[in-house]
């Protein structure tokens, strides 16, 4: 079942390569929709008390102890669902805008390859398989940003993607060595033949002194991916040039793989190191929150606002994880979902705004709400969620995270809260400057079309539902998160 879920997008992507270019979006949309259905089936059938359900494992490279193992548990089930959910509007939006620039088939193939790679990272239950999918994730996006990106504000598509891939690969290649070393360390500790199966590695444990340097290699890779300060150098240019549908999924989902990696691999396998370096990571996280928020409100380019706001949000998520506290970790996982649900509509709305005003800069904008009340409401909900107003699931997430952080360090929690305040500022400014104020000439305030509404509204709807019923997520994830956090807590 999981294998079908994993490979379905790629299969449809290959089909997209074979149909006439003008129709390439059809298999793409069908594939993502079908994947969503499958993901929903898996999620509904998921039972936290029976984590082995759906798991599958086949020996892939026995000489090296690597297996093709997939599994789903409380940590990954909603991330998988988020992935499947996020790709549908992205493909739909791309299809509605005739994306592809003459190379539609390749475009949709790359997009769907990206979905398979991301799903693979979330579903992998073998460490080397995880690293493989992590590395694979960047390849389609290298092509998506590089071939269909537009030069903007001094950033060229080629230059930006090269920078992005170099940053990302530096981290992930080092992580590859670390992963191999983890396997050998666990073999040494346990005396059993080498295996990279993650549950097996957790059970065996690795030597304490090894943990210390392996922790940082993994942390580096994840920090670069999310990105957190100070490894976010690649982000601005990449966000500038990327085509919007690709950027939507990239920002919403791929960044979460980094945070997920901490929960899946680093905390359970390297608990001693996690405890030792907790404060250091918390400081990185809170600096990212302040840095991201501060920069976000100096920017007038909508993409940059969203980009730096993401840095801040990922900082929050990391804060929650490294509070090493059940509440905080649950909050972090919940926030991963929420942020994803917010970012996809936000980025697609940027596209809608650009179509109405001819630019993505806040400077010359205004008054788009004038003839577009429904659009205004949708955007308002998204904005409110971004700033985590009480009544949005993001509020609950941040509350849980801050609660957990408070247990560890009051000072850090207070500084992080400043980030919440800053978020209010840049989010509201973004809304006000685009939607309110007089309408400048050259801007066209028109209502959101039915088609666009159908694309964006579902995710917003899920956000609203989660606001009222967060236990849909929190109820299922609780056990898995506890297991992770307790492992760290079990130390002497």
């Amino acid at each position, binding site marked *: 079942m999981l294998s079908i879920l994993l490979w379905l997008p790629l299969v449809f992507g290959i089909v997209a390569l074979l149909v006439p270019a003008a129709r390439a979006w059809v298999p793409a949309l069908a594939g993502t929709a079908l994947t969503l259905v499958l993901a929903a089936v898996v999620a509904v059938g998921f039972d936290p008390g029976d984590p082995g359900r759906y798991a599958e494992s086949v020996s892939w*490279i026995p*000489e*090296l102890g690597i297996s093709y193992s997939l599994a789903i548990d409380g940590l990954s089930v909603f991330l998988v669902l988020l992935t499947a959910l996020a790709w549908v509007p992205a493909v739909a939006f791309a299809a509605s805008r005739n994306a592809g620039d003459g190379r539609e088939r390749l475009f949709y193939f790359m997009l769907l390859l990206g979905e398979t790679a991301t799903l693979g990272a979330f579903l992998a239950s073998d460490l*080397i398989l995880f690293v*493989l*999918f992590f*590395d*694979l994730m960047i*390849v389609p996006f290298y*092509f998506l940003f*590089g*071939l269909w990106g537009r030069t903007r504000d001094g950033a060229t598509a*080629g230059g930006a993607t*090269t920078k992005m*891939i*170099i940053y990302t*690969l*530096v981290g992930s*290649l*080092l992580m*590859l*060595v670390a992963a*191999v*070393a983890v*396997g*050998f360390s666990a073999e040494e500790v346990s005396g059993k033949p080498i295996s990279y199966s993650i549950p097996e590695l957790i059970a065996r444990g690795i030597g304490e002194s090894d943990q210390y340097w392996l922790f940082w290699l993994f942390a580096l890779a994840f920090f670069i991916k999310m990105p957190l300060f100070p490894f976010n150098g690649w982000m601005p240019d990449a966000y500038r040039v990327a085509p919007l549908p690709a950027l939507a999924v990239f920002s919403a989902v791929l960044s979460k793989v980094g945070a997920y990696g901490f929960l899946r691999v680093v905390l359970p396998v390297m608990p001693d190191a996690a405890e030792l370096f907790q404060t250091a990571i918390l400081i990185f996280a809170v600096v990212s929150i302040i840095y991201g928020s501060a920069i976000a409100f100096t920017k007038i380019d909508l993409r940059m606002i969203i980009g730096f706001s993401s840095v801040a949000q990922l900082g929050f998520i990391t804060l929650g994880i490294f509070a090493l506290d059940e509440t905080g970790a649950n909050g972090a996982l919940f926030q991963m979902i929420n942020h994803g649900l917010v970012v996809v509509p936000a980025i697609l709305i940027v596209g809608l705004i650009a179509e109405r005003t001819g630019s993505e800069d806040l400077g010359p904008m205004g008054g788009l709400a004038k003839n577009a009340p429904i659009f205004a409401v949708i955007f308002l909900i998204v904005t409110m969620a971004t700033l985590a107003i009480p009544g949005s699931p993001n509020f609950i997430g941040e509350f849980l995270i801050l609660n957990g952080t408070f247990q560890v360090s009051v000072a850090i929690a207070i500084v992080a809260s400043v980030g919440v305040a800053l978020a209010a500022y840049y989010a509201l400014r973004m809304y006000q400057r685009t939607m309110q104020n007089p309408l400048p000439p050259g801007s066209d305030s028109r209502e959101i079309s039915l088609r666009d509404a159908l694309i964006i509204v579902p995710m917003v709807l899920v956000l609203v539902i989660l606001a009222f019923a967060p236990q849909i997520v929190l109820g299922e994830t609780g056990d898995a998160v506890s297991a992770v956090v307790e492992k760290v807590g079990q130390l002497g």
Partner: protein
Amino acid sequence: MTFQPPEIDYWALSPVIALVFGLALTVVLAVAGRLARIAPAAAILSMVVAGGLLIGQWGESKDVIGGTLELDGLSITFSLLILLAGIVAVLFSLGDPAAREAGRPDFLALLLGSVLGMVLLTQANNLVTFFIALELFSIPLYALCGTDLRREDSLESGLKYLIIGSLGSATLLFGMAFVYGASGATGFEQIADGLSSSDLLGDPIILTGVGLVTVGLAFKVSLAPFHQWTPDVYQGAPTAVTAFMAVATKLAGFAVFARFFLTALEPLADEWDVILAAIAAISIVVGNLGAISQDSLKRMLGYSGIAQAGYMVGGIVVASTEGVEALSFYLAAYLALNLGTFAVLVVREQRDGSDDSIESLRGIGRRDRALAWPITIGMLGLIGLPPTVGFLGKLYLITALVDGGWTWLGILIVLGSMASLAYYLRVVGTVWSGETESPGHAPGPSSRLLGLIVGVGIVFAVLSIGFGILPDPLYDFAAQAGEAIGSLPG
């Protein structure tokens, strides 16, 4: 005094005999007038027959001529790869103006001679056969580099390769002399016995010998700091020859590297592994840094080949069966990725008249997908990205190194791969750049031969991805090579 003729296993010798026969045939065809046209077919046929005879003895391990040649997993696997490179080289050369000018059968005879030497080198189990085979593959190669008589750089590259290559051979020979003197034998197993039985560790004679042999081999497989000739010679030689050299010299060189160091010099493993590790490190740095500023694709591949050779040495440094398996796997991957890339270069040169600059590839992503994809996959594979087989190859090497206690070298391989992003991605970026007003040469008319070469490129690209996803056959293939170096840890 009666003369005892050595034991000759003719069945084991048959692949070599097939190649000798092919060589003789092509030499004769050179003066056979109209018949010369069948020379390429004859050359390919002899290589295919040799390959078939090797496959027919798959899994066996035997002595061919009185202990001087050993046909086992290592020699069979590496020889098959060498023969594949040779066949592809013949295909590449068919449309090459150089081959036409030098007289095709002569060119093919030289190529077959080199292939013969390489195949013998993979089997060499004795200092004498080691030397003969080494020279047998090198000398025709010097001449082959010089066969493009219209270009000055071709002759120059031939002479330069000859001078530096012979310098390497002479150094190697001198080193062999010391090894012989210190161990009292010329056969590899006997050398190991001689070294371990006498108390010679640290003895200056044997250390000098090992050092000089290392230097000599380093010249041949283009390891730094003996790599100076590589970029110049790769650029000057005709492209078909460069393709062959880049891949096959490493195959043959590393085969004997593995066999000599892990059989004959095995007792001294603790002495030489640090030296080899240092050479690997220097090669990785020099090769990657050198490649970054190159505008000529052949020079860039030359420098990157130096770095790749550095990665491969890691497989020998660990002195384990796993290391040899990783080395074999990586070399097979390297062959597919490199020959796929060179196929594209050859077609561009012969069909479109391009030179070998990276710029000339600009924009072929739009105009010529059949060429764009193989070279893209080749570049991504040489970086070591999934889903190519290059990723698994690097993984295997890193695993062997970490397992052998050489984690720092594994990290260095990773750092080298990161540095290599700078130049490999540059090629990918140029290929896919969307400019319609590109200065690149437009595609010219295709012929059946060129179509075939494009096909070769595509096949290698497909194999690179295929083995990247389902690597089992390749792992089994590599395991064969590893088995041959039997009694090692790991």
